[in-house]
């Protein structure tokens, strides 16, 4: 029995590409993600004792648009996303690392236990950075060696979502972890679907993960649970790190 009253929080980071290619209905749909999450938590409000949310957008630079928070707090203002510039994965990964590090420290200092954070990363294009640059920024964010304790101990579970021109092979490299007890997955816009439907589907995957975390989060569990294949919303297909693309 767990008799402590200390909550164990699961931080969700929603990271959204706001490069110019995301214009129109894609951006509009992306702007509906957090309101949908907020509604879902308002319907199951004790979830607020378990989850925290942050929104980061990125283009040539990355910005924290919603600092990690209890989404039902009175003061919360959901950001509205606007477009600017290119698609720098590097900027997103670097900002994520500094945010996660300081947020987790803060939550712990406030007396909470913290599950490994979850990142939902959505992009519709290829990175404008050099491959080696984003790969090394991603390694900085996700690599940790348990034995030598080098790297980033608070590394997140990373779940990439791709729509339109996103390159499956690039996004596939962002699935983390790829093995172990709970491998993460990647979600792509289905071939017969459109980007807006896929982004709406991403909101559903996020919400179902949030709800599942309230149902089954127990000690020792790493937190995030992704919907299984049968429960995928329309518009999305799910892939593991080993799937091939032909």
């Amino acid at each position: 029995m767990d008799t402590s009253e200390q909550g164990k929080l699961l931080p969700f980071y929603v990271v959204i590409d706001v490069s110019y290619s995301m214009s129109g209905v894609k951006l509009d749909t992306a702007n509906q993600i957090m309101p949908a999450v907020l509604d879902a938590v308002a319907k199951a409000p004790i979830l607020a004792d378990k989850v925290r949310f942050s929104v980061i957008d990125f283009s040539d630079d990355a910005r924290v648009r919603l600092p990690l928070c209890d989404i039902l707090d009175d003061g919360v203002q959901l950001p509205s996303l606007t477009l600017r510039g290119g698609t720098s994965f590097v900027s997103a990964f670097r900002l994520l690392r500094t945010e996660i590090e300081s947020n987790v420290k803060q939550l712990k200092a406030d007396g909470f236990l913290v599950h490994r954070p979850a990142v939902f990363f959505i992009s519709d294009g290829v990175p404008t950075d050099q491959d080696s640059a984003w790969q090394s920024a991603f390694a900085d964010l996700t690599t940790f060696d348990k034995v030598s304790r080098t790297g980033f101990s608070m590394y997140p579970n990373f779940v990439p979502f791709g729509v339109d021109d996103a390159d499956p092979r690039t996004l596939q490299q962002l699935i983390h972890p790829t093995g172990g007890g709970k491998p993460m997955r990647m979600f792509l816009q289905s071939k017969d679907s459109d980007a807006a439907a896929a982004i709406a589907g991403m909101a559903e995957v996020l919400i179902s993960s949030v709800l599942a975390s309230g149902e089954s989060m127990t000690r020792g569990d790493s937190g995030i649970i992704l919907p299984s294949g049968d429960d995928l919303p329309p518009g999305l297909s799910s892939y593991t790190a080993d799937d091939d693309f032909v």
Partner: protein
Amino acid sequence: MAVPRVALGTLGPLLGSGGQAKVYAVPSVRLPDVAGPLVFKHYRPGQEPPAGLHALVLRRLRMDLPTRDRLDVRTAWPVRTVQDGGAVCGVLMPLIPDDYFHTRYLPSGAADRSLCEFQHLFVDPERARRLGMPVPGRKARLALCRDFAGVMHLLHTNNFVIGDINAKNAVFRLNAGPSVRLVDCDAIRIRGDAAVLAQLNAPDWDPPERTLSQSTDLYKFGLLVLRTLCPGNGASLYRDPDHVRGVLDGRGYRLLADAIGASPRRRPTARDWGLYFTELLGAGAPTTRAARISAPVVTTSGWVRDPTTRQWVQAGSDGQT
């Protein structure tokens, strides 16, 4: 006592859906032993609870009429199993009356009608009010606890183990006298029978003992009382009886400390709790009136998006709509 799926005819509207099932109105179906309208809970493939449902149905049919009627108004009991091709695919249950549902606007402005689950009582009252949920005062909360103790007494004296008492499996209404219904009764077990499906603990409701029994019901009820009477951020995780000091008197504190203590034998029974709450509320006190006075049910229209700034604003505040 199984009803063939085809006998239900055309289903009425979908009333709701959850992880386990979809629930439909069946306006054309009536049963001689059930007073009101019925619903059909259709399990999702692979989610059907095993054979034990029959036993719950039969046990109800063998009750004397007054007991059965009380069961029907205090729980969403499975009154018949429904079979499709020889296998159980769902159950018929009494329709939960309208006043256990609450209609409000969600933060996005979308209209929502959903069951008043106990979880809403654990939320900080200021927050619950902002989210458009009913916010009962102390007296109404005590009355809800008393009524829950009454439901539990009914089930325990009829040899049932509720098993999975949690933030969603009980719903409440505040008009017509604060009262409680147990929903999702398919996991209830008959004492002395083996568990038909492993009885589970919801997260944050696990008792000290591994095996679920009427004693663990009493433990979980203690948690429910604690969290209902001491709402606030983090309350859904509370385990410490000290929160209730200042809300209950010394006797209530001791009852609660025993209820959520490690020793199953010391836990107050449903009847102990019922007597205590009745005394606290004043014998025969008109709890509806008390609730109305201490707890105006406030509803806000939630949040709307400002068309120019695209920020979320509270509807109706500062003259904004």
